[in-house]
């Protein structure tokens, strides 16, 4: 591995730019997408087709005062938005965008990513707790029970993938699926006939982990104002929003690497990083599409979905995969 000082610097700048652009412009895509689905136009005023809207929003948020209300835990209140943003940014260090575009090929990168995702949950818990606001505390409690419930099927599904590929390194998992779409884990029917279902389970869980609608129990506008973000204004709120979008990107990257073959091109055409980008943006569009299609359900129905459907299915898939590996 190249140990030149330029390598980390280049990656830092590259990933920061990628993450920043995504965090800003996914907000724009979301508003445009929501608009189209509801037959509106979305932002149109700032720049061509509202393309400068994220910039204007960012400037507006930065020009506002970060208000710390009386009765809050000052340190935790300030730390929480940073905690929401940093793990998502750090995750990019181990994500392989293509065979040679990766900051560090860590052996246990899958484990690292899930550890970082759990810190993002801590941010919501701390933000809600430190706000000293009853809505925020309820929201934090809900968010924890929800994330806990959805992490189990997610991890069980990951175990199936790790069993198939025999590695916890994202690079190895992606390399293992090279050579056309029939090698992708989602279609690896010779490893387990339930792989497409486990792809769907993983995708549902990755939406739930980012606390987005229809799983946005943490910021239920109708009953909890804005949940854990109620007391946040200015860039504190901005960081939470950016963290949410970055977590979406990380989730889409994970789904792509674990199930859709990473940067592998379906028919061996034009190999390169753009296949990876194409796949994550299709997944991100689906996430936005899902958000503007389904209404939020009650919290207990949400937990029912996880404990009664997703967890049994993922466990069955784990057993089937183990049996297939043993037999064939």
């Amino acid at each position, binding site marked *: 591995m190249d140990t030149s000082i330029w390598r980390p610097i280049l990656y830092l700048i590259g990933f920061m730019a990628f993450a920043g652009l995504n965090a800003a412009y996914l907000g724009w895509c979301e508003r445009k*997408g929501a*608009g189209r689905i*509801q*037959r509106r*136009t979305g932002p149109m005023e700032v720049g061509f087709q509202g393309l400068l809207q994220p910039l204007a929003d960012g400037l507006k948020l930065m020009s506002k005062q970060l208000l710390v209300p009386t009765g809050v835990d000052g340190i935790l209140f300030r730390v929480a938005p940073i905690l929401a943003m940093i793990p998502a940014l750090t995750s990019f260090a181990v994500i392989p965008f293509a065979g040679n575009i990766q900051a560090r090929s860590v052996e246990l990168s899958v484990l690292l990513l899930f550890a970082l995702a759990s810190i993002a949950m801590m941010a919501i818990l701390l933000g809600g707790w430190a706000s000293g606001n009853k809505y925020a505390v309820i929201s934090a409690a809900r968010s924890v029970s929800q994330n806990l419930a959805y992490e189990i099927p997610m991890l069980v599904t990951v175990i199936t993938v790790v069993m198939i590929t025999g590695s916890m390194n994202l690079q190895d998992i992606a390399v293992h699926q090279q050579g056309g779409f029939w090698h992708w884990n989602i279609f690896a029917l010779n490893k387990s006939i339930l792989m497409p279902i486990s792809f769907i389970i993983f995708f549902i869980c990755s939406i739930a982990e980012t606390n987005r609608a229809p799983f946005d129990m943490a910021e239920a506008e109708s009953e909890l104002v804005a949940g854990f973000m109620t007391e946040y204004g200015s860039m504190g709120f901005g960081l939470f929003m950016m963290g949410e979008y970055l977590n979406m990107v990380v989730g889409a990257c994970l789904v792509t690497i674990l199930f859709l073959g990473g940067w592998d091109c379906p028919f061996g055409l034009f190999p390169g990083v753009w296949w990876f980008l194409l796949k994550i943006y299709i997944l991100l569009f689906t996430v936005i*599409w*899902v958000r503007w*299609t*389904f209404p939020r359900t009650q919290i207990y129905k949400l937990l029912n979905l996880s404990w009664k459907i997703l967890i049994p299915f993922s466990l069955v898939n784990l057993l089937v995969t183990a049996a297939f590996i043993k037999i064939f």
Partner: protein
Amino acid sequence: MSEYWNDVIGGSKSLLIGLSITAREFFKPVVTEQYPWVVPEMTERFRGHIELIKDEKTGKPKCIVCGMCMRGCPSGCISLAGKKPEGEKKKALTKYHLDFTTCSLCGTCIESCNFGAIQFSKDYNLASTRKEDYIFDLLKRLEEQG
């Protein structure tokens, strides 16, 4: 147990139906009108405040100053005046004020006019912060329209 499977399969099916509906809506044309940039045309029966109609032959208002609209108005928001110019047979309109603050757009003035001299306008950009702005000089408005 069969209830559970019905729940899983039926639920997934209904989720897919929901997604297909929004996907179809996504590709339909948008219905938003970019209002300040694109001014929509008002429908035929839209009731704006009243306006005078010009006589195409003479270029003057059709109004003959009979005062029926003023008498017919239930809120008394029309005030008009006219005088006979030298050497003419008919009266000519010299003043036609509409107090839009009390007008309820009932249309009695238009119904009571036997000469078809007034109609509802299509004017709806009427925002103002001053009460005086809503006392319209309709004669001046007609002249400005040219």
